[in-house]
């Protein structure tokens, strides 16, 4: 795999086709589990695990899977691997398993997993497919983590509450002190929509700015002229 190809896969997963902000796939777990940073990142990591293993398995077996029954076989593979992750979490991160609960088995129904298997792993080399899964998963993790941190910080005034479930002895950061009254809406479901909406707006605004900058300069020019930044202030209006 060429560095160029790697860069493209990474850029797609982390930013351009970001699961949470670009493709808007698998929003149910994103909205439901992002009540705290630790929950959000843990579920994201579990999803990366399932995605990487599914992409690896499907792309390794892609020449043996008849086209007509590829979807049942994909689902079978994803479901089996999710069960493996579910059992492992239950065995080794029991407290976290109790918190994440139904959302680990529900990774099966997260359409981003099937989407990457069908759109990428079924046509590409195992190594490339695994990297694609990890990059897509990391894209999901940073969005989930940011969303979780926003909601936790505004809603409860803490960061990394529940970290002791993963690293024994570690404790949460109480950002606003004990007297912070909390802002319930951030933790309840509407808070998830508000926070995700703001993130998507920011994502679109940045993309619009990047696109505008790319249009303004001729492609071969290696360095962006600094003047482009000065005019950038009026652009986000178009991003809505």
């Amino acid at each position, binding site marked *: 795999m060429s560095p160029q190809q790697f860069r493209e896969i990474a850029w797609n997963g982390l930013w351009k086709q970001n699961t949470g902000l670009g493709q808007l796939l698998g929003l149910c777990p994103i909205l439901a589990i992002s009540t705290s940073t630790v929950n959000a990142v843990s579920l994201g990591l579990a999803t990366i695990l399932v995605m990487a293993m599914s992409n690896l398995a499907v792309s390794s077996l892609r020449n043996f899977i008849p086209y007509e029954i590829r979807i049942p076989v994909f689902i079978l593979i994803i479901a089996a691997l999710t069960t*493996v992750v579910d059992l492992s979490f239950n065995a*080794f991160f*029991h407290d976290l398993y109790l918190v994440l609960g139904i959302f680990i088995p529900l990774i099966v129904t997260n359409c981003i997993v099937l989407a990457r298997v069908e759109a990428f792993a079924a046509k590409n080399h195992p190594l490339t497919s695994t990297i694609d899964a990890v990059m897509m998963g990391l894209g999901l993790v940073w969005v989930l983590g940011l969303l979780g941190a926003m909601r936790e910080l505004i809603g409860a005034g803490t960061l990394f509450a529940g970290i002791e479930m993963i690293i024994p002895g570690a404790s949460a950061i109480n950002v606003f002190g004990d007297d912070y009254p909390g802002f319930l809406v951030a933790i309840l479901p509407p808070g998830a929509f508000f926070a995700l909406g703001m993130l998507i707006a920011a994502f679109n605004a940045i993309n619009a700015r990047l696109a505008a900058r790319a249009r303004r300069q001729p492609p071969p020019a290696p360095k962006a002229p600094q003047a482009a930044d000065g005019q950038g202030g009026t652009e986000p209006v178009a991003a809505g």
Partner: protein
Amino acid sequence: MSARYSATRTSLRTGAIMVVFTLAFTALMASTYGLTRPAIEASKQEAQQRLVDEVLPPAGYDNALLDDMVRVDAPGALGMDGGARVWRARKGGEPVALVIEGAATDGYAGRIELVVAVGRDGRLSGVRVTAHKETPGLGDYIDPKKDRRKDAPWIGQFTGTTWRDVDTAGWSVRKDGGSFDYRAGATISARAVTRAVGRITAFAAGRLDALFAAPAGSVLGEES
């Protein structure tokens, strides 16, 4: 050629491939299950023991408490369908305390599950909420992990009381004329927990000896 690629042949071949995939991945799941089972069992036991330690000081008893368990089929008093688990703590063979699981069915958002530890003298040594769906930030103070007042969590007020200390009408929140506090904004959660604790304590107080005497692993009815 036509015989080789007939519909029957193709479907049989595809079906066979599907069967092979199913067998292979079922085997993967089965072996993971077999490999993780001891660890899962150990984690469950550990979590259960931690919960018991929160309501009953481990120094007070010396038996293998988690193994000394009876089931009590009393859905009316304990709120658990299919038999509530009751663990017995003993020291030197003498009864010390009961750890009883139960549930309030009248929470603001469904069931609230609890464990209650009752001493041989009928005194409560601790109450913990184990599962609930009360509103985060409002009713969830019944769980001391979510309680904002870490120094004096709401659930702590039950510790040290006995069924006889409080008259029957007193097993509710002050708003209903009872003798237990609640926090403004979420009376229903507190009321449900308080009444359930009262029911469980009363149930235990009435049959302490029977509960300690029953052989481990047996199932007791409502009348015992």
